[in-house]
């Protein structure tokens, strides 16, 4: 199982929030990449969280980060057409993350896969729990997670990222019912994010063969009991236990 740190960025700086809000400043994103190089992380997910941003500037940043990083990077946020996806991948991203865009445009998934291969495409769903149900909010529309996963199973992409909005930044642990629900119906590589508590939880999750990766924000961004903003990762011993090598 892969353990993948998450960096949210705007204006070349990285942040971490709770429930997708109240973002805390973590530092210059290039500096974070250099620190993560030393940790030899499995991969990195980078999401642009600006509502509106200059795509040209963002591409420059992707190029710089890709040039600097010793690990694979997945780039998401604002990817809404093939031309832009292509530029992100050609600027060195290893994978592209599509989110709400796919509700309007399933074709985009095929367009990217045909050129770059299905291993270059991930789809991220922001999930909210509503009682016993799991829903995706797209503007004013509520979509059942079950329906959406069944539709996505037929598309040519590799990774399904399930991001639990309700648990984001909470460090309460992953919603195990959500994990079970998704792994039962999804035919893709399944990655989860939202609420990772500690290393013991990651170790336990790593025994579940249907989980391909865990994306970790707060646990790797805020250090110790004082939750000091300081990017870090697993030590070598912990990596060995998770990767089982």
């Amino acid at each position: 199982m892969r353990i993948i740190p998450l960096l949210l960025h705007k204006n070349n700086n990285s942040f971490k929030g709770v429930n997708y809000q109240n973002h805390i400043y973590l530092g210059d994103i290039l500096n974070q990449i250099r620190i993560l190089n030393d940790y030899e992380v499995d991969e990195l997910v980078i999401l642009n969280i600006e509502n509106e941003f200059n795509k040209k500037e963002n591409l420059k940043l992707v190029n710089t980060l890709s040039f600097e990083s010793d690990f694979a990077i997945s780039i998401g946020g604002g990817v809404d057409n093939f031309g832009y996806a292509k530029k992100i991948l050609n600027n060195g991203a290893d994978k592209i993350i599509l989110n709400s865009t796919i509700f309007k445009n399933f074709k985009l998934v095929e367009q990217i896969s045909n050129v770059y291969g299905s291993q270059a495409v991930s789809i991220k769903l922001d999930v909210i729990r509503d009682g016993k149900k799991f829903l995706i909010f797209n503007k004013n529309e509520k979509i059942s997670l079950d329906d959406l996963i069944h539709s996505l199973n037929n598309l040519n992409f590799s990774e399904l990222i399930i991001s639990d909005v309700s648990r984001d930044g909470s460090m309460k642990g992953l919603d195990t019912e959500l994990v079970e629900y998704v792994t039962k119906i999804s035919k893709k590589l399944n990655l989860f994010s939202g609420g990772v508590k500690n290393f013991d939880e990651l170790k336990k999750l790593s025994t579940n063969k249907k989980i391909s990766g865990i994306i970790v924000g707060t646990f790797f961004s805020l250090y110790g009991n004082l939750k000091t903003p300081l990017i870090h990762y697993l030590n070598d011993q912990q990596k060995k236990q998770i990767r089982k090598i």
Partner: protein
Amino acid sequence: MSYKKKICILELGVGNFVSIKGRIEKLEYKVMISDKPKIIDNSDILIIPGVGSAKFLMKKIHDKKLILSIKKFSKNKTKKIIGFCAGMQIMSKYSEEGNVKCLSLINSKVIKIKTKNSWEIPNIGFRTILNKKKYFKDSSNFYFNHSFKMIVNKKIAAKKFYINYLKQKILAMFIYKNIYGIQFHPERSGKNGLDLLNKVLDN
């Protein structure tokens, strides 16, 4: 300072050339990214980058009329040609990914990795090389991201290195004369990747 070889990364309009260039420059080599036959010819090492489907990469190579340049380069034993991931796979005669005829630099074919469960493919993550020998340290793990695998014809006297994925032996790297194929991404494999890259370029 000792002589460092001239390296050309083949510009195919797709792929991981940014990250490969970054890692190679870290090793203090001079790197060009080009699709010009003259620049390719003048290089000591030619790299075919990965990330991209075999069908698309081959279409690009045909469109740019690079087949002859690549073949000529590969036949010159004083030079070295290296393919990464999809760049290695298109060195084969044929790939199932888009049912496409490839470069035929080595007698091999590329087929889809068969698994019991759909959620086991692609093979993504760090894996350990089984037979280490001189290219790999004791704990050499490298980053893989692929759905297809290369099968080299048994009669071909290539050095082959494998990983074990879902009880299948999957080719991780081969060396055949001056042709090097690397299924994984050394440019995305931390210090181990840099170490291997240095050995392959410097050998």
